[in-house]
């Protein structure tokens, strides 16, 4: 694993009173209601909650892909839209969403090619940004740079999506259940890869998951969302040592966190 020589500047995220409703007044769905949350610079926060509680919606609002009805979102000093134009987000969606006609390496450099004007402004004289070859090495894809996505397994495709987000060297990583479709073993490898990437880049990370174990293993804080309307039910700080020691999943402190989050989830479902 090669770490970038120095760190990109991380940025905090500040949500206050964010609400979002889909559809018209009566039949509509209140997807999010009065969400207030601060994510510190360099912090890794996971969002967990039952299906349909608005996790993806919240991530899209932070990323400037969707406007909230009420409330404000700040990314550092910028609005989400301005941050998006400055290429501040490394976005990993739930599906790999690769371009099938591009090779792996061309998929990784895709986001550099678009919005070029801003890309140049983010050029770094110190050479902190990883080269495509370094990214492929870090994600274990060195031998597959010239393969097309359909020649890769699902886990490898997801690693390409991760490398694509890392290529921007963005101060903020937004990840929507990136490992949900993977088998248990691959998922374990991907979690460690993510922790490596996050630790070496120093980026702020908002991570959506369905897995309580995953949330506890990865996060500084776990935000439990409750459905209808989507709201914050509990926030659980995770005070486990970093880097996570091997076998941490079997320790009683780990289980205690899992138990408390499960309780919050059950309490909110009632």
């Amino acid at each position: 694993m090669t770490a970038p020589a120095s760190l990109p500047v991380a940025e905090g995220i500040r949500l206050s009173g964010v609400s979002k409703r889909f559809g018209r007044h009566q039949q509509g769905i209140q997807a999010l209601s009065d969400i207030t949350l601060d994510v510190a610079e360099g912090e890794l926060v996971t969002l967990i909650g039952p299906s349909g509680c608005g996790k993806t919606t919240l991530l899209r609002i932070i990323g400037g892909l969707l406007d909230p009805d009420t409330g404000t979102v700040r990314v550092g000093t910028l609005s989400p839209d301005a941050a998006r134009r400055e290429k501040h987000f490394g976005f990993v969606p739930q599906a790999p969403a690769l371009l099938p006609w591009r090779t792996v390496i061309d998929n990784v450099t895709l986001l550099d090619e678009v919005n070029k004007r801003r890309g140049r402004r983010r050029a770094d004289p110190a050479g902190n940004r990883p080269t495509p070859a370094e990214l492929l090495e870090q994600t274990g894809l060195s031998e597959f740079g010239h393969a097309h996505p359909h020649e890769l397994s699902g886990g490898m495709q997801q690693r390409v999506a991760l490398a694509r987000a890392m290529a921007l060297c963005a101060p903020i990583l937004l990840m929507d259940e990136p490992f949900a479709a993977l088998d248990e073993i691959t998922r374990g490898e991907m979690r460690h890869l993510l922790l490596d990437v996050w630790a070496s880049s120093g980026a702020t990370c908002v991570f959506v998951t369905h897995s309580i174990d995953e949330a506890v293993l990865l996060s500084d804080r776990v935000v439990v969302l409750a459905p209808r309307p989507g709201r914050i039910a509990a926030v659980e700080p995770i005070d486990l040592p970093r880097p996570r020691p091997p076998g941490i999943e079997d320790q009683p402190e780990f289980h205690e966190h899992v138990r408390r989050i499960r309780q919050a989830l059950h309490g909110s479902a009632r």
Partner: protein
Amino acid sequence: MEPYVPPSEPGRGRRAFSAVLPPTLAFAVLFGGWELFVRASDISHLVLPAPSAIGREIWDEPGYWWSHAMVTGSEALLGLLIALVVAIVLAILIAHSTVMDRALTPVVTMVQVTPVIALATPLVIWLGFGLAPKVVMAALITFVPLVVNAAMGLRSIDATTEEVLRSVAASPSEIFWKLRVPQALPYLFSALRVCVGLALIGALVAEWFGSTEGLGRVMTQARNSLAITKLWAAVAVLMAMGIVATTLVRLVERRVLRWHAPGRRP
């Protein structure tokens, strides 16, 4: 870094052999049976000429058939190219704006339900006996499948992939060139495969209704003089042209869409 080497395909020669053998056998049985049937029965050549007689008709005058085939072929090709350009422009408008979609889709549907063949006579009246009515007919007949498929392809982009591009504020034109166009290509090619045959039919039919050269002209003359074998020979030449054109499209498609995951082609 080791360059990626695609897995080699063992027994390529044998695969090609097994791809060619079944259709060759099928054709041999079909034409052999036809030949035997005509020779065994004393059926008149006006009803059904033997394949060997049709073949001889073409073999004896290759220059004659070549020049008429080129006339019909270039009419069809020109019509197809015009239809392709118009279809791409309209498809972009339809895929990009709801207003354009509402305005243009009924027009496309109207062309679709029009029995285009019936327009041959007015086309000849308007445009004369030359190249123009044939080109227009070939374009009219191929236009609808091209525009419908191209619009569908341009619209079929994956919403998640679009969001990835939007997450770095890609412009609409970047999304168009990097995502929509490559995504539409397989749809366009599958329409083209059908349309090369249709374009030939369009040019031929227009020739029936008034022309001085081309395979349609050959056919009407042959009919009038009861040269039935010659009529069949014209059909055979058209078939050969259709096969060559479709194969060419397939070859180009294979080159251009090499990246496409198997089974994802529409």
